[in-house]
């Protein structure tokens, strides 16, 4: 009885909340008991108090980080999917663009970030560009993989029904590639988020990454922790947003199916 509750979605959510609640209590107790200096490790109560004191300020910066991540990610999805289709359907694109992309993937993209500040300035656009660049690779690679891994017999079946190339792409290949695309999107959204924060680290006037670096300069550790906490929440939100989209769009997906069978049975 009890084990079946803890295996359910609500049970697992509650489990996570209780676990982190306990961790926060341990943290609070340790800070007070060992009298740790606030500039080294502020107590969670102090961090929460700071967020509650100026919520709009934090929200404003969180909004910037979210905006950069979202636009960077959206651009990466659009460019990535188009590129992947091109790679799968054209040998020339595969031999040129894809080869360049795979080779450039070896470059740590974060190292290129300062260049974007020079090229694009210090407003939103360089952060969006960096977020796009880091998210692009997993999306292209996983989409190519998905489009290619279509069962050849499935294609025979489509050809026997006189499907055109476009119909095969749209009605067979694309849905077959969706699980793989979503695997790329999950990695991509996390990377876009990191890319946006790195952009803010280098040069910015807004964003949670900006709060972290500017607070660090004055040893004001409390807003740093508050920003990190908000970043963690945002990261979770973004990841689960993609998971949610996946569960809505791909109810048939095998891994979900197995999950459903285990929870039912």
């Amino acid at each position, binding site marked *: 009885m009890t084990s079946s509750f803890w295996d359910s979605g609500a049970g697992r959510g509650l489990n996570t909340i209780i676990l982190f609640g306990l961790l926060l209590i341990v943290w609070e107790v340790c800070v007070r008991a060992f009298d740790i200096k606030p500039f080294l490790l502020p107590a969670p109560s102090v961090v929460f108090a700071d967020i509650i004191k100026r919520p709009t300020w934090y929200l404003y910066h969180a909004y910037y980080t979210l905006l950069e991540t979202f636009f960077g990610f959206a651009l990466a999805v659009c460019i990535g999917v188009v590129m992947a289709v091109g790679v799968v359907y054209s040998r020339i694109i595969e031999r040129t663009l894809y080869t360049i992309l795979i080779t450039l993937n070896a470059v740590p993209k974060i190292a290129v970030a300062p260049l974007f500040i020079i090229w694009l300035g210090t407003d939103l656009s360089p952060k969006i560009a960096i977020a796009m660049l880091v998210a692009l690779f997993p999306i292209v690679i996983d989409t190519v993989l998905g489009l290619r891994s279509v*069962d050849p*017999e*499935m294609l*025979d*079946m*489509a*050809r*026997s*029904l*006189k*499907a*055109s190339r476009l*119909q095969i792409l749209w*009605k*067979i290949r694309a*849905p077959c590639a969706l699980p793989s695309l979503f695997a790329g999107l999950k990695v991509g959204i996390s990377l876009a988020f990191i890319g946006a924060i790195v952009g803010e680290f280098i040069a910015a006037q807004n964003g949670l990454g900006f709060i972290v670096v500017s607070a660090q300069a004055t040893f004001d550790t409390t807003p740093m922790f508050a920003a990190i906490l908000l970043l963690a929440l945002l990261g979770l939100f973004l990841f689960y947003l993609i998971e949610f989209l996946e569960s809505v769009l*791909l*109810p*048939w997906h095998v891994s979900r*199916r197995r999950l459903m069978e285990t929870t039912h049975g």
Partner: protein
Amino acid sequence: MHDMPLDPTPGTTPSSPLITVEGVNKVYCSARGDVAALHGIDLSIADGEFVSILGPSGCGKSTLLKCIGGLEPVTQGHIRISGQEVLEPPDDCGFVFQRDLLLDWRSVLDNVLLPVELLHQDRAQWKDRALQLLDTLDIAAGADRYPWELSGGQRQRVAICRSLLLDPHLLLMDEPFGALDAITRDELNMELERIWEATTKTVVLITHSIAEAIFLSDRVVVMGKGPGRIVEIADINLPRPRSLEIRETPAFAAYQRQLRSIFEALGIMRRATA
């Protein structure tokens, strides 16, 4: 070579063949050298005939079916359907594969309607026929369900409905019941017999089951391997419509013995050459 029918009945001899296969060779080129999949295949299949192609795995029987269905080009020779050279999947031809190849993201009904959609025709006009077909194959209740909610046998029934939707004159079936359990297989054999009986379709069925081939066919083409070639063509003169009980008759047993002895002979041949 060709086995003479014990009791030749008029009408079984092909007057105008629907499918003619002439001197077909098929060679697959691979990195490790060329592999001959089919060698010197000659076959003609009459309009309205039910022909099974029986053989051990790897004898090229599926390759032959894919060539007939225009999914694989032949290396040499000609395949014609109604006098026309097969270069691409022909019109008026339905395919059933060993795996059901249903699209998991479409409901059963949407899977059955796929052929209509690919031809840019009006789905609404075909919906009644699709539901009727599903009813014929006893899965109408599942029309709104998704393939992953169905059993293997039900999935293959849906695949058969899909291939029958446009009422093709020619039905090419590549071991459609190979992956099913024995009871489901018997059931689907019965249903296929009934469907063939009720329509005027020409069916080419690939199978490795001797009983299935005899039960369903007018003629059984026996293939051997290395490279794939036709060893024997046996006429099956059992009364129609056939029911499963026919499998217990002496005539059925005689056909089974006859076909089994061909395979035994092939086995001996293989041992002699090895």
